[in-house]
């Protein structure tokens, strides 16, 4: 059945709906007025962003540190768990799937405040360390799922062949499974990285003074009203996302 004109119209309107607000943010970042009324082209906000907004750059640095550390750890634990789960049946399987699904549906606010209560009960000082712990926690189920779904297209015969040719468990793991899985592992890392860079709500609760991340910085700027510097930061983030999307096109089907 070919989609009719009605469906085509809905698709076109949806794409406009997706992109028009983002386009307007980009446009407004070059607007010389502070309000969203167009009054001429300027690069003032970009110059301001690069020369004066130290707190933005510090927040950006924190975001990168957190994202790199947390997505690396989450990818390692998640991938190896997925391989173990695929390789050998375990009694823990249904408990493990329950644990995996749970963080997907528990709202961010609750994950955030529950971690805040845990850290404050255990007298752990809030800072980059607690943010990293929180980010690993919410990205681990994603990395596990992405790698696991990649494993489902994996041809088991290759493993059998490797065993028949005399490989040990460890050799099968390093020489057969890992190389074949690399695109999936990379996709998992990428997803965890994006989730970490993007997260506002959970980070908001577990960040201490001096450990502001970029989304938290943006949040406090938005709270003060519409600021053209936010438009400039947003433009970078939107273009960065599109660039990443284009470069990593072939990984997207693994991410979902």
């Amino acid at each position, binding site marked *: 059945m070919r989609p009719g004109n009605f469906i085509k119209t809905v698709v076109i309107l949806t*794409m406009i*709906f997706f992109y028009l607000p983002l386009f307007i943010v980009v446009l407004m970042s070059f607007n010389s007025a502070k309000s969203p009324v167009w009054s001429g082209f300027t690069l003032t906000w970009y110059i301001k962003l690069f020369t004066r907004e130290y707190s933005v750059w510090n927040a950006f640095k924190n975001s990168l540190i957190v994202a790199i550390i947390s997505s690396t750890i989450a990818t390692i634990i998640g991938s190896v768990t997925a391989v173990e789960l695929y390789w050998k049946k375990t009694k823990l399987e249904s408990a493990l799937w329950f*644990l995996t699904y749970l963080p997907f549906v528990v709202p961010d606010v609750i994950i955030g405040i529950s*971690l805040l209560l845990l850290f404050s009960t255990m007298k752990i000082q809030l800072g980059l360390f607690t943010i990293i712990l929180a980010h690993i926690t919410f990205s681990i189920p994603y990395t596990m799922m992405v790698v696991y779904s990649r494993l489902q297209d994996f041809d088991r015969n290759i493993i059998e062949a490797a065993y028949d040719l005399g490989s040990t468990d460890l050799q099968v793991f390093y020489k057969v499974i890992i190389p074949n899985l690399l695109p999936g592992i990379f996709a998992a890392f990428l997803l965890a990285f994006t989730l970490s860079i993007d997260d506002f709500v959970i980070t908001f609760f577990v960040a201490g003074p001096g450990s502001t991340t970029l989304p938290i910085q943006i949040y406090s700027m938005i709270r003060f009203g519409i600021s053209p510097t936010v438009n400039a930061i*947003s433009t970078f983030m939107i273009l960065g996302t599109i660039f990443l999307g284009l470069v990593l096109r072939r990984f997207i089907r693994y991410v979902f």
Partner: protein
Amino acid sequence: MKYAYILWLMILFIIPISIIFIFSFLEPQVYGGVRWSFTLDAYRYLPRYLNLIWRSIWISGIATLITLVVAVPVSFYIAKSRLKNFLLLLTVIPFWTNSLIRIYAWKIVLGNNGIVNQLLGALGVGPIQFLYNPFAVILVIVYTYLPFAILPLYASMEKIDDSILEASLDLGASKSITFMKVLLPNVRTGLLTAFIFVFVPALGSYAIPDLVGGVNSKMIGNEIVRQLMSVRNWPVASAMSNLLTLIALMSIVIVMKRREKS
């Protein structure tokens, strides 16, 4: 490593959620914190928030409905299109874009001197206050969660055998009947997943009502944070959180049952 995985989620997920569960049965202390004596006071307090709970449910319900109504034709189109990969990319990019920036974009578009009001002004209408009401919250929830609905629906639509749709058309069903009676029942699992992926997080949303909602469109998430941070009544915040967690738990049980069946 699977033990590391389980242990990690036990310590940093199950235990914290359990702390909330326990705190909801304790007495509050004046400046936050809890006193270790059992009481159901926090739950007795909840009926006062019936309005807020009901509002959160209808706002997320309407937003989910709109999201699904849009996502079904879009995901169908993508699944049948030759430009599949490109269209998927177009869907994933907003999903990857920072969520605060997506909320902020709507503040610029819908603000009192935003683009929409400038256009209306040129037509001699307005300005209309679009922001800080349930309408704005619903709109931004739809915007934020639409990719979450399109992607699982696309996965279901892709698996459908085209010949059953052709058969329905050959046997004389109209396109819309085929859509409703053949296509939709075949993507039930995708629809259910999409529903849960949108409804549950929408119900617990914090940032969206906080930034584009007004006093009459705050949701449970905002009240939980207010009880915890400003009112400093930890047990009440915990009791409200348990309500949301309960809904999340029920939705997982449904999804896991489905998964076993298929």
